[in-house]
């Protein structure tokens, strides 16, 4: 029955700052908000869509999606109530779109509304979304934790520039989810209680939630696995033996799930040399002196022992991968070209390509005498630093000298065009980080590597084609993918693109398919780790094991 299991305590080592996911893209904010506000549909742990506020998932088959792929029509479940008792209507859904698409609002989830031409209410419970062009994947708006429905009444006066002024609404959104906010202390703790108007009268089982933020992953793991103070800890990015040791505490267990997140090495195809004038570094004006040679990139990849990386860095939470898109199943290329470390092969390859150590210092030189010296950067993070050290060592064995650099994450991922240290600027030869995509469709993700989409001075260093990759063939495939509706066809194209970036060109050198490890206490039941949506997607089903 509702509220019979007392209190559940959740620990996120990153503290939520706001409960309105439209004003913050941060995972912590999206996930914490997902207990309160809900989208029309979510992805389940396998990446399948399940209706939440919607009656069913609109498809071509059931006519919810128009034949020309330009509209999608959602029907709300009847009788839904906001936590304040007022009914949920299609107006709210439409409002949500208006709210996010307001030009001055700075909506963080705008990309979900990409291509949305208009949103109309057909009746109390029906909304129709019209796109400006055919959308093979029309499940952007209102699907998944990032674009939940907010109440029109509450946010009506918070549109556009006024959005940040509505502190009360942003901190205490009225929702349809299993819980509602009692008190929100930004960057610290949220206390919630069961939503009396939740659609399932038996849920949630917990009457109260304490959602604590802050600290670090070690402490979070300790609190769940060793001291048992908390029931659930999010994203334990810890060395596998540390987690294993914590599990010995016997208070809980770690669970892992795999989405499309890949830790990879990005090769800079352009020359980042500081001797170039500012504005020309890492631009397509100057190709990289040796990394523009595929054989060098290949050799660098061959020298890496990915098994060991997984073992040391991620354990259960990682798998060896050679793919940029390792999931979902249907899009995964399942390459195996990189699984074996092959130092000798790499050496041979470089020898053949003419990169020889001519001066006997243990470092190879390019045919025109430039030493193979690599600046290898990543964000500051213990596991990444271990990877750096290991890879540096392997590269040394193939005669490549590596200089390591780690940059504070907030600078590295900050994208400040004034800073030389952002991953977009890529003032290094190689960089390492992880990236993924939302939902289950990789189209946008793969479209990033379009010619001209690279960060460059003219675009204020914005752009997603970090490697400065450019292949007209590839661009053609991007366009083709955008036109194709058939899922199997799409998968075929996507796998081709994936291979072009990895296996064929070694532009991107995937290292580890990273899962997410979270931990829950032994007394917490119903936890299903979901990497396609919010981890807390089914918090309504959680219960206390007695």
């Amino acid at each position, binding site marked *: 029955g509702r509220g019979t299991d007392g209190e559940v305590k959740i620990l996120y080592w990153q503290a939520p700052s706001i409960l309105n996911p439209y004003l913050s893209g941060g995972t912590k904010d999206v996930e914490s908000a997902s207990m309160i506000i809900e989208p029309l549909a979510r992805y389940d742990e396998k990446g399948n869509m399940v209706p939440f506020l919607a009656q069913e998932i609109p498809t071509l088959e059931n006519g919810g999606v128009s034949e020309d792929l330009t509209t999608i029509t959602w029907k709300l479940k009847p009788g839904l109530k906001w936590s304040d008792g007022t009914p949920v209507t299609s107006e709210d859904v439409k409002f949500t779109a208006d709210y996010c698409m307001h030009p001055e609002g700075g909506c963080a989830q705008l990309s979900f509304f990409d291509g949305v031409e208009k949103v109309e209410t057909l009746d109390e419970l029906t909304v129709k979304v019209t796109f400006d062009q055919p959308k093979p994947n029309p499940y952007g708006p209102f699907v998944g934790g990032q674009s939940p429905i907010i109440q029109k009444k509450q946010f009506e006066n918070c549109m556009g520039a006024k959005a940040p002024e509505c502190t009360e609404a942003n901190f205490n959104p009225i929702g349809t989810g299993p819980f509602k906010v009692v008190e929100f202390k930004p960057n610290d703790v949220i206390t919630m209680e069961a939503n009396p108007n939740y659609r399932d009268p038996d849920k949630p089982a917990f009457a109260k939630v304490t959602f604590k933020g802050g600290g670090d992953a070690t402490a979070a793991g300790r609190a769940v696995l060793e001291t048992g103070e908390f029931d659930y800890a999010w994203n334990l990015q810890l060395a596998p033996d*540390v987690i294993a040791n914590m599990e010995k505490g016997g208070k809980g267990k770690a669970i892992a799930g795999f989405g499309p997140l890949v830790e990879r090495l990005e090769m800079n195809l352009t020359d980042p040399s*500081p001797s170039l004038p500012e504005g020309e570094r890492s631009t397509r004006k100057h190709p990289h002196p040796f990394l523009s040679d595929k054989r060098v990139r290949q050799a660098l990849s061959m020298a890496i022992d990915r098994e060991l990386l997984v073992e040391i860095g991620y354990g259960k939470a990682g798998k060896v991968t050679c793919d940029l898109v390792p999931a979902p199943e249907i899009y995964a290329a399942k390459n195996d070209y990189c699984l074996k470390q092959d130092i000798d092969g790499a050496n041979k390859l470089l020898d053949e390509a003419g990169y020889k150590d001519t001066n006997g210092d243990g470092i190879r030189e390019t045919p025109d005498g430039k030493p193979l010296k690599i600046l290898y950067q990543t964000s500051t993070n213990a596991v990444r630093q271990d990877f750096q*050290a*290991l890879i540096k060592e392997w590269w040394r064995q193939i005669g490549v000298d590596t200089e390591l650099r780690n940059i*504070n994450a907030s600078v590295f991922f900050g994208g400040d065009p004034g800073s030389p240290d952002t991953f977009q600027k890529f003032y290094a030869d190689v960089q390492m980080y992880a990236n993924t995509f939302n939902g289950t469709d990789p189209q946008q993700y793969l479209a990033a590597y379009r010619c001209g989409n690279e960060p460059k001075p003219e675009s204020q260093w914005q752009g997603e084609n970090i490697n400065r990759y450019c292949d007209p063939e590839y661009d053609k495939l991007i366009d083709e993918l955008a036109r194709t509706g058939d899922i199997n066809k799409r998968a075929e194209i996507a796998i081709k693109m994936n291979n072009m970036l990895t296996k064929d060109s070694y532009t991107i050198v995937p290292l580890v398919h990273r899962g997410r490890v979270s931990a829950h206490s032994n007394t917490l039941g119903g936890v299903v780790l979901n990497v396609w949506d919010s981890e807390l997607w089914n918090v309504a089903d959680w219960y206390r094991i007695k």
Partner: protein
Amino acid sequence: MTDKERFVPDEGLAPASTVLPAAGELDEFTKPPRSQWANVWDQFKTHKGALWGGILFLLIVVTVFLGPYVWTIDPTHIDIRARNQGPSLAHPFGTDQLGRDMLARMMAGGRTSVSVGIAAMLLALGLGSLIGVMAGFFKRLDGPLMRLTDLFLALPLLPLLLVMMMLFREPLNATFGPEQGIFILIVCAIGITSWMPTARIVRGDVLALKEREFVLAARSMGTTNTKMILRHILPNVLSPIMVSATLGIATAIITESALSFLGLGFPPDFPTWGRLLFDATDYLQQYPERVFWPGMAISLTVLSVNYLGDGLRDALDPRIRGR
């Protein structure tokens, strides 16, 4: 500067008490003359803690700088099969999660930590003494310089460090190489955010010193301001400066480790005691010895340097030494 200003009394400043002549014992005067440093050494020797502190510190410095010639394993050498080992003959301090030799890493880390400690201390001391002396000696500069001190006290270290990283890393890397570059950067960051206490202490002492008669006497002999500072003021504030120095080494080492904690310290292949300790705290339960060594090294260094400071203060203070 004119002479006139010197006689405007400072607010809140009690005049320096003049040191009365010590009781004269005639046989004292027949003792052979000794150099100042011999006296300092004599005094220093009698302070047991200081002596041991000094020896220990020296030992640490020697181990850390000369040790690698004896223990020749490369601290960055990865032997992945031998990871997370406990102490053994091959690895007396064990190995870390990548199988790197902890003893070698301790020595390499010590080299950085001790150098950062000493260099940052020297910088902080230089700045602190300069500003302290200037503020104390030239009344006109006092106000502005003390406000400057307030300003620096209020500055947050972290953004400052980030700004410095951004502005200076590339040029420093270009001129000194990546390791030296970041070293200089961190030393500067610690240095320029920790000179304030020294400046205050020195200023206070200089203000008191300025009222002493020998300064007036020197002025009446035509000593210029520069010479006054160099000959008369600086040597007499040496003892508080030395104490700040020893404290400074300790704080610099600790600050560096805190920076490592906040992810702003040295790069990962650049071990320092602070970083080793921080990295090891995750393994506190499985491999307690990993925490033990760097923790011990930091504590011992700080401890030895503090004792050293205590002794130096006694030794350098002419009032104590003079008796």
